[in-house]
């Protein structure tokens, strides 16, 4: 059933008793052409684009828990394409373009809301880095504006310009950046994939990968063995665990990242803003909660929860940026497990095992990448060669010394 105001009206007359499930709840078949491990945003997007762009049908997405229970369900919903390095820029811009038409494409309102992403700078060096980044965007026609302190004040007069430790000198604004209702992205892709024949299977945990003669032949799951011709790993946060079933060791550590939401408020802040003198960024959801976050807790973790020091660290920065936050209350914190790669950039590549593909290492930037990640991963799986905008995300870049290190931190995952 196509979703629209008309279907909604029609159903309201029948007391909403006739809505069909948004997706089927199929049992796994004994064999698929392609199995995707991980029913999160990237996995579902991959299935969707495999079906839609490449006409492939015999596909299963296996999710060990409930649909979207990974990082697609626990992020801070920001989308942007304001990257620094040549290897990243075109990829994230493709993602942004996909976001811009996504809802009509998969017939699900994910509330893609382009209210702008503003990164504040507090030193000349930061402004220089923003200039480099902004020009790297503009050179490819991506929107970017460098604001001075006056222009920032026009947008957000209640930020601390009077008594700050690190004065706001300006900011880099991408007006097309914004937020998306994160759960709805998973649901929209799931529905879109399901409608195109993909089996989205929840509660099906992959427990082993069957390899014969260096080639993937299937998986062992909590719901039995399933054969496949191609196996696509897409389990960010847990990529190392899943890859180890195929004997692979990855340049990845798992770290916990906390995020927070405040009590609901009437409009307080319009766009997304990141503080440049501490770890803090904030936006406001359509429902009214201030959604905010900061840095990793710093230690390797698979626990989806954090500790108080990072809460303080983030909130101190928040109040430094916006003193009026002080009397607003933090409602809830949560934690997600991040695939922190050794250079802070993702991996979309084939592996040394024939038929085994890897999509991993998204650090805490995976949400905004969701459509492009699915699009490029689908391309790789279908054609066995990387999509042109994802050529920098090869696994051999570490060995070859071609790392993609946006922050210049080196092989220390918790600093990216």
């Amino acid at each position: 059933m196509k979703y629209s105001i008309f279907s909604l009206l029609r159903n309201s007359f029948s007391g909403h008793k006739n809505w069909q499930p948004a997706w089927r709840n199929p049992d796994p078949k004994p064999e698929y052409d392609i199995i995707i491990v991980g029913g999160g945003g990237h996995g579902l997007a991959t299935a969707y684009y495999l079906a839609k762009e490449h006409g492939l049908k015999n596909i299963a997405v296996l999710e060990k828990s409930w649909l979207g229970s990974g990082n697609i369900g626990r992020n801070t919903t920001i989308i942007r394409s304001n990257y620094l390095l040549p290897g990243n820029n075109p990829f994230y811009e493709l993602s942004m373009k996909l976001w811009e038409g996504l809802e009509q494409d998969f017939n699900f309102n994910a509330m893609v809301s382009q209210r702008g992403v503003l990164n504040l700078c507090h030193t000349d060096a930061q402004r220089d880095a923003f200039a480099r980044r902004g020009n790297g965007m503009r050179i490819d026609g991506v929107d970017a504006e460098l604001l001075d302190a006056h222009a920032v004040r026009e947008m957000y007069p209640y930020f601390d310009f009077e008594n700050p430790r690190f004065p706001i000198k300006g900011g880099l604004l991408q007006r097309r950046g914004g937020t998306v209702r994160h759960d709805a992205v998973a649901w929209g892709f799931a529905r879109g994939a399901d409608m195109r024949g993909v089996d989205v299977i929840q509660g099906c945990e992959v427990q082993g990968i069957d390899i014969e003669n260096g080639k993937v032949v299937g998986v062992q799951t909590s719901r039995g063995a399933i054969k496949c011709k191609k196996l696509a790993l897409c389990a960010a946060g847990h990529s190392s665990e899943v890859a180890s079933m195929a004997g692979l060791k990855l340049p990845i550590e798992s770290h916990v990242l906390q995020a927070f939401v405040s009590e609901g408020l009437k409009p307080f802040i319009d766009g997304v803003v990141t503080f440049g003198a501490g770890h803090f960024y904030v936006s406001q959801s359509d429902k009214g909660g201030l959604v905010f976050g900061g840095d990793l807790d710093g230690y390797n973790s698979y626990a989806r929860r954090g500790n108080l020091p990072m809460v303080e660290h983030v909130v101190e920065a928040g109040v430094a940026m916006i003193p009026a936050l002080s009397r607003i209350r933090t409602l809830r914190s949560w934690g997600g497990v991040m695939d922190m790669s050794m250079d802070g950039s993702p991996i979309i590549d084939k592996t040394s095992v024939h038929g085994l593909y890897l999509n991993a290492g998204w650090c805490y930037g995976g949400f905004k990448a969701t459509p492009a990640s699915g699009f490029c991963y689908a391309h790789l799986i279908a054609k066995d060669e990387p999509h042109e905008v994802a050529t920098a995300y090869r696994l051999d870049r570490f060995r070859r010394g071609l790392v993609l290190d946006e922050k210049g931190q080196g092989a220390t995952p918790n600093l990216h």
Partner: protein
Amino acid sequence: MTGFRIANGGLIDRSTNLTFKFDGKSFKGHQGDTLASALIASGVHLMGRSFKYHRPRGVISAGASEPNALVELREGPRKEANTRATMVELYDGLIATSQNRWPSLENDFLAINSLASSIFVAGFYYKTFMWPKTFWEKIYEPLIRKAAGLGTASKEADPDTYEKSYAHCDLLVIGSGPSGLMAARTAARSGARVILADEGSALGGSLLFENEEIDGTNGLSFAQTIIAELASLPNVTLMPRTTIFGWFDGNIFGGLERVNDHVAVPPAFEPRQRYWRIHAKRAVLAAGAEERPLVFGGNDVPGVMLASAMRHYANRYGAAAGKSIAVFTNNNSARRTVGDMKDHGINIAAVIDTRKNGKIINVKGGKGVKSIDLSDGSHFECDAVAMSGGWSPIVNLMCHRGAKPIWNEIIAAFMPPDVGPQFRAIGSASGKMLLSECLNSGIVAGTLKGKTPPTPKCKDEAFAIQPFWWVKESTSKAFIDYQNDATAKDLPLANREGYGHVELAKRYTTTGMATDQGKLGNVNAIAILAEAAGKSISEMGTTTFRPMYTPVSFGAFAGPFTGHHFQPVRKTPLHDWAIEQGAVFVETGLWMRSSWFPKAGEDWLASASREVKATRAGVGLCDVSTLGKIDIQGKDAGAFLDKIYCNTFSTLAIGKARYGLMLREDGVVFDDGTTSRLADDHYLMTTTTANAARVMSHIEFCHQALWPELDVQYVSVTEQWAQMAIAGPKSRATLQKLVDGLTLNDETTPYLAAKDITILGGLTARLFRISFSGEHAYELAVPADHGNMVARAIMQAGQEFEIVPYGVEALSMMRIEKGHVAGGELNGTTTAGDLGLGKMMSTKKDFIGRMMATREGMVDPARQCVVGIRPVDRTMKIRSGGHLLKQSDRPSMANDQGYICSVAWSPMLDMWLGLALLSNGRARHGEVVKVFDGLRGHHYLAEICDPVHFDPENRRLHA
């Protein structure tokens, strides 16, 4: 009873009269009231509007779980949105305003949403608002955002202060009801360090309002006796008004103490709130149990409230919820409400027990209860309804580290999980429904050593419940999540549409996502969802409990670290001197550095240019104290430095300095600086200002984890020394006037000399002949307490050469003129080769980063390396961040050749120039490239050149 104020009893002080305002109207209350109780006593039930339908709502609870009675408390910069009226202690002059309504609480225009509620079902917005595409941002979303949200936050800075503090104890008791008091007393009497925390304004928990008899006395005086004893013990800390909001790793608890929320303005020197990190060897959860609403039509009409809340208001605050009350229950705890109300002379219109005589189908009344319709067709007039759907142990804290609660059929509630001996639940928080069990469990938990003392005698009231989840016959809306307007019908709908997992249903219907985080509604939601899905409640399970148990202000978490105190300020030993010289300071990490020293009428550029010219013509003095300085000693100090630096230091002569470059293990440049050898076993390393702390950690790691066998000791001496660069052709003559018994010349003090000297008649100092400016220059270090004095002396000595102080702007101009790399180039992605320092990498030894630096991508000739850049039009200003293109290429990332890292106005060459990273740049000196600066609408041609723009032969250095 006058109005709704019961004549006597309770814990309010009727001799006080407090005046307060709600929505502009004046009311009176007493000391000891909450805002909610004072309004109820004034006959006011309508206190808020719901989120989606803007339905009129009244208070439903008497505590922190309140979803409806949220107000904007106070005004101006102290305004707090979404404040629970049930938790606000009344003070004279209190001002509260209802929220999420327009134009008024009585007449809310958006109540029109209720009419469209047949469309506004769970998840409706996912199905619409998609066409036309552009309408979402322009029309739909702005309307939705305006209508959504609850209270309005102030945008002014908070005038109050906040504090943070740590606390330590043997036993933390969370909750001060019967079980908590017993646990605290038992542990305290055995000498343990005890903290007793309670969210309420007074200690005592349910004993503050329930009629109990313990040890032959009433429950309240029993509690007061224990509290008095605890207060007298030095090993006990009582913390009323303190919410324990989270349980974290290491048995650390987060607490929020509302130090001064019960007064209009905090007294001078006192914080509004204090955030606690409590390190508890053991803790007990004695938070009690939360009464559940029943789910029936109109269960949100103002005047419908929890049965226990109703007696809480009557017994503790002397506030009657109505004059004629109906009681609706599925368990026998509500019997207490019946008895207590009768005792207060309040009429009981009907008692409806789902186990006996049916159900309430609908509550009639808009802004207040008028009557109820029962399932047997009968009809009763009443002005309030007390409901009790059972009791849920408050398990939240015990689930904050991932454990899930366990469904118990007997009490029809989720029980706390076993999380080990460090943290146990007691009393009704552990599902104990008899008072004697609660007292006993407290005593057992409080017995940290020795024999368990006897349990006080008390009268128990038997508890029994028959779960009852939803009056399906109701024709009006039956609410699950009051604030978010999630109704009972939304959950089967979610299940029907595939969102049947409890976590998906939560997200799809928003049940449990309001400010009360499902404290009241979640169990009802789970039960109804389970039924729709054909599962047991146990199979359905709960959503995840997460901090905060109740919301915590940003201010408390930030504590005193706001505004100018966000991070500590680090000042150099020359700070006072710099102020005397008129310095403008700039934040460099935590340091305040002097940036330029303007004379009247000069801007930064004029000032810095003058400083450069004066320095290059005569002499200048610059504060370089912020450079990291690490004292490295030990017999293996040289061998150790050989591991840390890519070049060699073990061969450095005593009394000499050498420029060193260190890499990360991945082969990328980490830091640079000049390191000197002071003795055979003694080196002094300098680092960049930015990396000083990281280099220290790196050294500690390399020694302790990689090469502990090396005999090397290191300590930061950054703060011990005030360090000054004295640069320019007259630097030697200037310094000569200060030094004791040493003639400065190329024999005694050659380029790269490093020596201990004395100055000004015996003051210890270190002299280095090194230069960042490209001039004949020195760095002089003196113990920090003498820094200002020595800087003044140098200024005095240099007066005849027209000495100037110069700041980091001038320093930056001079280093760019000289092509010296700094932060813009040492950006964590460049190799030694990129910086033109590839030859520094020794091939004769192992060092950090050696192997990884040999990878193909790291030595690719096409890599971007440092070049000089200047505009072809010499009058043009250039800026950092412009990208470089071949002249023939169109702008695109694919054609990108590099970018400009650092620029400066060159006072010596009279033009803007810079350093850039350019693909294969060393082979391209002389090439003209296109600079793309689209960000600033600036595109121009620039010439690539050697990075050393000024004095390429380094004549001045050796002059």
